[in-house]
C-alpha cells in the first residue's frame, strides 16, 4: 500500500483572515460544513455550508450564521436505517442568539438554536459543548463539555430541547473545566474530566460509566461519579486540560490535549494498562484504525502515525501543507492565509482513489466508493460497533474497542450490512484500513 494525499477541491473563501478554516462536518461527497474565525478570538465568525464541485474541483460557500465568536465547531450527522437524517453542530457562542452560552444548532435550519446554560445568571460558557454524539437507543444527543464546559448535556433532537445534564463532583461548581465522553464498542463510555489553566488546581480524572445511567438520571443533574455504574480508572494532579481535551480514540488508545502548567502537550491513555504517556509530538491527529493522520505544517508534510500516536508510519511531502490545517479522520483542510485559498484533501491508499462509504439501507448493503469519482472500489475495511454515533468531523472519534467488536473484511462490491452484536449496540462504523493493521 502506497499512501498519498490527493486534492479533492480548492476554493478561495469569501472573508480574509489569518485564521484556520475548520472542518465542522463532512456531510457527504458534495457537502461540507466549515467555520471561519476572524483574526483574534473576539472576531466575527462565520458558519458556512460548502458545496463541492467534484468535476471542476472547486467549491462555493454559503454563510449560514455569524456571531462575535464561536457558533458551532463539532458536527453530528444523525444517520441510519429508519432514522431521519439530521445535522447538528455544537459549541459555545459569544454574541449571536446564545451570548456566552453553549449551543446546539440545527445545521439544516440555523434559525433553530438551543442555547445551553447551567442556570447561572451569567453562564460564562460553562455550558460549552465539545463532542456531540447520537444515541439511537434513547434517541438523544449526548455532548461533551469543551473549554469552560462542565456539563454533559442530554438533548432531544426531535424538538431541540434539554432532557438533562450530568457534571462531576469536583468540577461541578468551577468555571473553566472540561468533560468529554469517548464511546466504546459497548453500552459504556469513558468520561475524561480536567480542570483548565484558569483553575488553580491541576486535575485529570478518567472513569467509565453506563450510557443508560447517564440518560436515566440526567433530569436530576447528578454527578457522573455518583452514578451507580461509575468505575474509577485514572487520576492525576500533574495536568490541566488544554483548551478542549479534544480526546479521540483510534480503537486502541485515547489521545488527548493536556497542559502541564508550562506548555500544551498530547498524551496517550492506554485503557488496558490504565497508563497515561506523554507524547513528544505536538500535533493534533485524525483517527485512523490503529493509526493517526496529521500534518506537520512546519515541515510541509502529512504524517501517518502508528497506533502509539508517536511512531511515524509514513511521511508524505506536500508543499501546500505549509499553513494552518484542520484534520478529520483521513481528510484535511489546508488554509493558505496569504491567498485565502482553502484546499480539501484526502488520504489515498494507492494514489488514485480516496475511499468513502456508501450505504443502501433499502437493501441492507454498503460499499466503498471513490470520493473523487463516486466509482466503486475494492479495499479492506474495519467494521466497528458502538452505542454512540460519531461523525466525520474535526472532533470526531472512533469507538474504543474493549470487547473485540471489530472485524476486517475486503469490500469489492455491495456487501451485506452485518447484524448488530447486541440490541443496544447498533451503530456501525466502517473505516478504511489504510495501515493494514490486524484486528
Amino acid at each position: 500500500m502506497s499512501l498519498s494525499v490527493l486534492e479533492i477541491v480548492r476554493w478561495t473563501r469569501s472573508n480574509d483572515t489569518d485564521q484556520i478554516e475548520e472542518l465542522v462536518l463532512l456531510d457527504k461527497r458534495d457537502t461540507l460544513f466549515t467555520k471561519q474565525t476572524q483574526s483574534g478570538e473576539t472576531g466575527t465568525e462565520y458558519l458556512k455550508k460548502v458545496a463541492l464541485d467534484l468535476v471542476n474541483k472547486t467549491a462555493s460557500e454559503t454563510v449560514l450564521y455569524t456571531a462575535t465568536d464561536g457558533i458551532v465547531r463539532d458536527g453530528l450527522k444523525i444517520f441510519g436505517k429508519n432514522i431521519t437524517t439530521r445535522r447538528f453542530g455544537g459549541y459555545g457562542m459569544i454574541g449571536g442568539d446564545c451570548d456566552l452560552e453553549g449551543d446546539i444548532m440545527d445545521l439544516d435550519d440555523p434559525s433553530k438554536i438551543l442555547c445551553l446554560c447551567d442556570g447561572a445568571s451569567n453562564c460564562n460558557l460553562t455550558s460549552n459543548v465539545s463532542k456531540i454524539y447520537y444515541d439511537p437507543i434513547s434517541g438523544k444527543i449526548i455532548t461533551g463539555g469543551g473549554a469552560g464546559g462542565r456539563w454533559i448535556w442530554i438533548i432531544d433532537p426531535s424538538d431541540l430541547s434539554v432532557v438533562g445534564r450530568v457534571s462531576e463532583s469536583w468540577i461541578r461548581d468551577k468555571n473553566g473545566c472540561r468533560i468529554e465522553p469517548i464511546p466504546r464498542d459497548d453500552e459504556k463510555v469513558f468520561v475524561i474530566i480536567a480542570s483548565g489553566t484558569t483553575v488553580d488546581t491541576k486535575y485529570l480524572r478518567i472513569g467509565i460509566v453506563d450510557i443508560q445511567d447517564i440518560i436515566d438520571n440526567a433530569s436530576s443533574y447528578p454527578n457522573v461519579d455518583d452514578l451507580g455504574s461509575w468505575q474509577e480508572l485514572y487520576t492525576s494532579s500533574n495536568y490541566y486540560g488544554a483548551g478542549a481535551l479534544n480526546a479521540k480514540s483510534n480503537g486502541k488508545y485515547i489521545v488527548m490535549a493536556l497542559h502541564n502548567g508550562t506548555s500544551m502537550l498530547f498524551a496517550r491513555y492506554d485503557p488496558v494498562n490504565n497508563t497515561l504517556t506523554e507524547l513528544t509530538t505536538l500535533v493534533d491527529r485524525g483517527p485512523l484504525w490503529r493509526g493517526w493522520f496529521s500534518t506537520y505544517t512546519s515541515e510541509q508534510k502529512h504524517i501517518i502515525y502508528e497506533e502509539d500516536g508517536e511512531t511515524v508510519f509514513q511521511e508524505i511531502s506536500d508543499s501546500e501543507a505549509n499553513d494552518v490545517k484542520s484534520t478529520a479522520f483521513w481528510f484535511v483542510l489546508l488554509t493558505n492565509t496569504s491567498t485565502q485559498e482553502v484546499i480539501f484533501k484526502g488520504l489515498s491508499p494507492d494514489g488514485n482513489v480516496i475511499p468513502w462509504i456508501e450505504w443502501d439501507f433499502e437493501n441492507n448493503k454498503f460499499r466503498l466508493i471513490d470520493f473523487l469519482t463516486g466509482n466503486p472500489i475494492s479495499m479492506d475495511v474495519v467494521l466497528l460497533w458502538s452505542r454512540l454515533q460519531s461523525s466525520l468531523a474535526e472532533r470526531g472519534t472512533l469507538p474504543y474497542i474493549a470487547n473485540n467488536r471489530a472485524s476486517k473484511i475486503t469490500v469489492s462490491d455491495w456487501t451485506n450490512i452485518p447484524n448488530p452484536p447486541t440490541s443496544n449496540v447498533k451503530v456501525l462504523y466502517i473505516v478504511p484500513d489504510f495501515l493494514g493493521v490486524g484486528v
Partner: protein
Amino acid sequence: MSESLSATVEETTGPQFSITDYPSTVSGTPSETKTISVTVANNGDTDGDCTVRIKDHNGNVVASDTKTITAGGSETYSLSITLPSETGTYTWTIEAYNVTNDTVDDTKSFTVEVSEAPTPTAKKREFPWWIIPLLLGLGYIAFSGYKGEEYEE
C-alpha cells in the same frame, strides 16, 4: 444512496417466506397430470429467493420452482404434478425453501385423491308402461266374460 462514516443499523432477519394460498385437495385419476397454484409471501426485511417444492407421500420431490420475492411481496407459483398410478387417498406436502438462509420456512399439506375413471353406467330399463293397458284390456275381457255368464239367466 447515502454516505457517512457511521450509521445506525438494525438486526435483519433476511427473507422469511410463508405459504399463503394452496389447494387443500387435488383429485384425479391414476397418473393424471394436474397444475396447482401456490402463493408464497416474503415477510422478511430483504428480498430473497424461495423454492417451492412439492413432495409426494414418500417424501420425494415431484415438482419445484424458484422465484425471487421482494421484501413484503408475494409470488404465485404454478406447478405441474403427476398423480400416483394407484388409486387411493394420499397426503402430499408443499415446502417454501429459503435459498438465502438454507431453511424450510413453511410447510403445508394437501390431500391427493386418485380413483379409477368412472365406467359408463348401464341405461336404466324403463318401466314397460305399455303393459298396463294390455293388462287392463286382458282383465276387462276376462271380467266381462264372467259377468256375462253371471247375468245371462
